[in-house]
């Protein structure tokens, strides 16, 4: 199964929620020094050493709402996972959930051309189509997937959907 990408919502989130980011102190990586970067390629003259971004912090998490509890208070809005790409070289990304205008699409419904997904669903580019998929919990429990579907991580860390 191909990894799936969230569609459009990151752009909406950037417009609606930019500047509200807060740091996530739990986002540090104790293992990054062990297997965070590739082998040194500079020794033989033909290699290349990635410049990396030593000043960049961990990704920023901004959870405005809960996608399972759907606790947005603005009428006509629902909670969706979103990502804001870096706004400049070596700046951090923002991962989170935001209250955005609610659509009507359920599992498998097309969601390009501005057609949004219903609450509890997210619009994904799957490599087969651009469709609404039910949000799920990778750990299963009450937010699992129905028969035949598998809970798949999406490109907003911390969120997954049934595909």
């Amino acid at each position: 199964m191909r990894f799936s990408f969230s569609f459009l919502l990151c752009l909406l989130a950037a417009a609606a929620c930019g500047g509200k980011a807060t740091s996530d102190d739990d986002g540090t990586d104790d293992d990054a020094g062990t297997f965070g970067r590739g082998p040194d390629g500079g020794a033989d003259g033909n290699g290349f050493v990635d410049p990396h971004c030593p000043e960049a912090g961990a990704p920023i998490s901004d959870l405005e709402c809960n996608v399972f509890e759907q606790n947005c208070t603005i009428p006509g809005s629902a909670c969706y996972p979103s990502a804001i790409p870096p706004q400049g070289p070596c700046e951090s990304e923002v991962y989170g959930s935001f209250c955005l205008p609610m659509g009507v699409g359920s599992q498998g419904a097309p969601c390009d051309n501005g057609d949004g997904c219903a609450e509890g669903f997210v619009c994904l580019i799957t490599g087969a189509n651009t469709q609404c998929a039910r949000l799920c919990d990778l750990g299963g429990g009450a937010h699992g997937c129905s028969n035949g579907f598998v809970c798949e991580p999406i490109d907003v860390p911390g969120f997954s959907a049934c595909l």
Partner: protein
Amino acid sequence: MFVKQSLAIGFFAAIVAQGCGARSQLQPCQRDSDCATVDMCATWVCQYDTKIHDKACIAIAHTSCDDGNPCTTDACDKHTGECSNTWVTLDVDGDGHRGPLAGHQPGDPGSCGDDCDDTDPRAFPGNAEVCDGVDNDCDGIIDNGATYTPTLGSEFQLSKPSFDWAEPDSFVRGSPKSTVDILASYDGTLGGQLSPFLQPLDGTGKPTIDPFVLTGSDAAGSGTSVAWTGDRFGIAWSDRRDGNYEIYFALLDPTGKKMAPGDERITVSDGYSLYPSLVWTGQGFALVWQEERSNGDFKLQGQRLDLEGRLVGNIMTLTSGATDDQGPSLAAGRTELGLVWVQQKSTSQAIVFQTFGFDLTGAAPSPVTLTTPSMDGEGSSLVYDKKNDRYISSFFDASPAKRVVYGTVIGKDAKVIVPPTDVGKSPAQERDVSLLALGDRVLFVYADDRDQNSGYELYAHTLSADLSTELQPPTRVTAAPGDSISPIMTFATDGTALVLFRDDRGPNPAVFETGLKCVMPTP
């Protein structure tokens, strides 16, 4: 016998003298011995030349270096008079057999080479076939007669436990002469950061060093596609460092080190550029991906790169029309590229196939549809069947009622040879299929829920090359609770069919590896 003899200096100079009206440049002489060192590839005499009214060296006979071999370039060294006969083909892998001329079948008349794989010294005519995932004797069949036996319980977790999750992307074998025998790539989230990771493996599929991040930025990247050229790996992926998903490319040397010039941005697009598929054609890299248009639909784009990673030509648009084209998968044939992808139409989700030249031009007028109208095709992949000079595609029907995995065979003329065939024949749900084309048979591995073991398990099934005959029945490959999905296969050096897959037996989805042991028939 490609003759490349030196021109006789007398003849050349005479033309110059006539055409320009200049003074003679012929070597003056008084006797034949004065001409001995002019050009050792000819017999010279000192004669009176009526055009220049003087004596000059004139060639009266030329040395023939033609060795009668049509596969050599014949030349004469004018300083020594010695002939050289240079082969027009090479023995790159040093196994004593030359590769064929481009566009020729190995061993065919005029091919000037009979090595079926000149990147691998284990493959040449007359060699003994052993379990190694290689067509040792060049009969077009890999590990003739071998069966594949799951080693239940031998699977191990490849991604580190500290990953939030990990899913496999690519699994590619290098050569036995490279430091990295096999390169695995997967996406994962570590410390809240989504990144593509690389894992070098030895010939048995065991890690040689810890996995490392592919990218040099701290933005999200994923969806890697890897190709081996014979002396290096090429890798392409989607990267969000520019504020939008763009396609990037890099080269890795045989030890896994990133080579200069480092990360190369391929696309500059307002929309998302995703799901790259990369192959090595023998002449260069071919890279295809899906790129978003302003209406939200995707079209397939392509770019060629040379061995050094330099762009060759411009980005080419490969699909057009009122369709949404996603999920491309390339395979390099002997003389062309095969491409499958998912084409979203108003009423169906079709898997389609089309061929292109290695330069990404010369496409057939329209792609052929592999799925039936009632199918929702997903997860398409494509491999080239070298023995039969055709392609095998696998995919699954994602129709909600029942998911089924299929295989289909397509000719290089884009005609369907074997229509979609139910590969799993399972009464339960199936998905995510990977295959290895072995020449006379095809090994499929796919996810199957027939055991109701708290999710999908992986199964292996071997069919004949035309998918009509079952050679080994469906056999369970994994057995742990939780889903085992997304298999990708390659060969270990002992012929084991290694399987990289996602497994949910632990608290987080992780990348696991297992193998189907190659067993040769008893003589």
